[in-house]
């Protein structure tokens, strides 16, 4: 987790952000270690386990993007699944129907979602606060309708099948393990890019946007630019996730890109811990893997899942990351963290 600095803290009031120079390395180490573990993890686990791990990582990418827009920049988007759909359909059509190389399709998916994100971001500049949520809500449903109705292009309700998987240096990735490792690498690269961005001045500007856009503007922060960037980059991450989702499942139809899935991604961000770099991985773990584990309880598994999420949020509105941070603080005796209800 974003463990607060364990050394060199002269003051008792130790903040999460202030501890960044120390905890940055913690996050980086965790990402590297995580990637290594996940590279070897599926050995002997069977294709099901491997597949679920891959699915978890793919969803993590989409959640990472939403965490940037929502958790860091404070923009409420209800269209993350729709952006994921744009990426997935773009990749499926480009690789499946036009025979394009997956890497090119991946880049194009990112570009398309980035561009659409920019366009959709303009109303976000005009209208404030929760109204962006409403605009994206409408967008999300419109995209879903187009995916379902324009059968000539998207296959409509029947979906698109036979989506090819990419290859690396001429090596086909048709096997579950090979593709999983590919997903690990792509996720790792995207996570590192986001980690870098958040610790760069951009990250600081995004957070300033979340906490006080008016003050940020008066300090020379181009709020318009950063708002658009946060939204467009977050959307592009959804596009990247879609570009991996399509070849992972090898079939897409409109259902995983509906409004309710956008809500579900939002749930993952918040439950994992919004505004924490590793929060998305935990959130996606909750959203994707937890229901799979809970299959042991039979038909009640969704109720158990939702109850866990609800109780978690009641106990700790900052999500699992917040809970772990709190636990860590208690463990190290630093339970006098400056608490503010700023968000």
């Amino acid at each position, binding site marked *: 987790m974003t463990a607060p600095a364990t050394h060199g803290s002269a003051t008792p009031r130790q903040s999460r952000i*202030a501890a960044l120079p120390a905890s940055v390395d913690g996050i980086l180490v965790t990402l590297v270690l995580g990637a290594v573990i996940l590279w070897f993890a599926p050995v002997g686990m069977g294709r099901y386990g491997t597949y679920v791990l891959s699915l978890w990582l793919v969803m993590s990418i989409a959640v990472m993007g939403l965490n940037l827009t929502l958790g860091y920049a404070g923009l409420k988007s209800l269209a993350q699944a729709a952006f994921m759909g744009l990426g997935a359909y773009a990749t499926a059509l480009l690789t499946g129907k036009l025979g394009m190389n997956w890497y090119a399709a991946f880049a194009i998916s990112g570009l398309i979602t980035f561009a659409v994100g920019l366009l959709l971001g303009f109303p976000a500049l005009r209208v404030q606060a929760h109204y962006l949520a409403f605009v994206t809500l409408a967008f999300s449903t419109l995209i879903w309708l187009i995916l379902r109705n324009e059968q000539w292009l998207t296959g409509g309700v029947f979906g698109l099948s036979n989506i090819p998987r990419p290859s690396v240096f001429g090596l086909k990735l048709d096997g579950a393990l090979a593709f999983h490792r590919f997903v690990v690498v792509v996720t790792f690269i995207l996570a590192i890019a986001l980690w870098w961005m958040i610790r760069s001045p*951009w990250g600081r500007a995004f957070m300033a946007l979340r906490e006080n856009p008016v003050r940020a503007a008066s*300090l*020379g922060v181009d709020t318009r630019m950063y708002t658009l960037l946060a939204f467009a980059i977050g959307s592009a991450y959804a596009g990247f996730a879609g570009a991996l989702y399509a070849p992972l499942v090898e079939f897409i139809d409109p259902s995983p890109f509906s409004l309710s899935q956008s809500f579900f991604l939002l749930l993952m961000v918040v439950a994992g811990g919004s505004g924490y770099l590793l929060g998305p991985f935990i959130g996606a773990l909750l959203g994707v893997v937890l229901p799979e584990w809970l299959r042991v309880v039979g038909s009640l598994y969704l109720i158990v899942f939702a109850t866990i999420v609800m109780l978690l949020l009641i106990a700790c509105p900052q999500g699992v990351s917040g809970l772990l941070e709190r636990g860590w603080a208690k463990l190290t005796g630093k339970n006098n963290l400056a608490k503010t209800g700023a968000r």
Partner: protein
Amino acid sequence: MGQVLEVSNIHKAFGGIKAVNGVSFGVNEGEILGIIGPNGCGKSTLFNCILGQLEPSEGSVKLDGKEVTGMRPSELNRLGVSRTFQLLQVFPELSVRENLILAGQEHEGTMLSRFFGRRDAGLSEKADKMIGFFKLGHLVDAKAGGLSYGQQKLLDAAMAFMAGPRLVLLDEPAGGVNLTMLGDLKERLRAINAEQGATFVVIEHNMDFVMSLCTRVLVLAEGKVLAEGSPAEVRANPQVIEAYLGH
């Protein structure tokens, strides 16, 4: 000694209510101009019009003789105009140092260099100096949201100076600050004015503060300039006394 800021004939109405009704004034380089006036006289609205937070219904604002009316706050800030707000405006979840780095980072380099460059945009040292200057050195790693009111006020002011602005507009810097801190603040402002040659415009209620800090004072009443002059002149002006004591 040219005019840094030239405000001419600013009007601003909110649905029929004229908050600012034709205000004109100039600010000379190196000057500390105080703007006073009773509650609701349009001081803050005037500030917001000058700084691009609000679009004036009429009138123009010139910076160094260049038209900047309606320019966005962030652009104006990068031209060297800085401000503080009447209500507290720090970033509570960021540390004191991060607050200050943020206040300076957009003034150097490009978007790209800010992405690929150093995390602190090379501003850590400058930030620490500024923190020391405002006597907040012991709080450098604390979350801004956890500071006391007076400390936040100091931080707020420090942020306004971080990028070395030419012109700083302070909206009630003394509001809610205790006496000891007030002395600190005044002393700091004077020092910056003397050392960096920064020009100040100060809106304030606290008369003692204004009168002892400012070199020139502008009095607003009902959206218009009522009087103008040195602190002593203004203090002696019967119209001003009327406006303050008359109702």
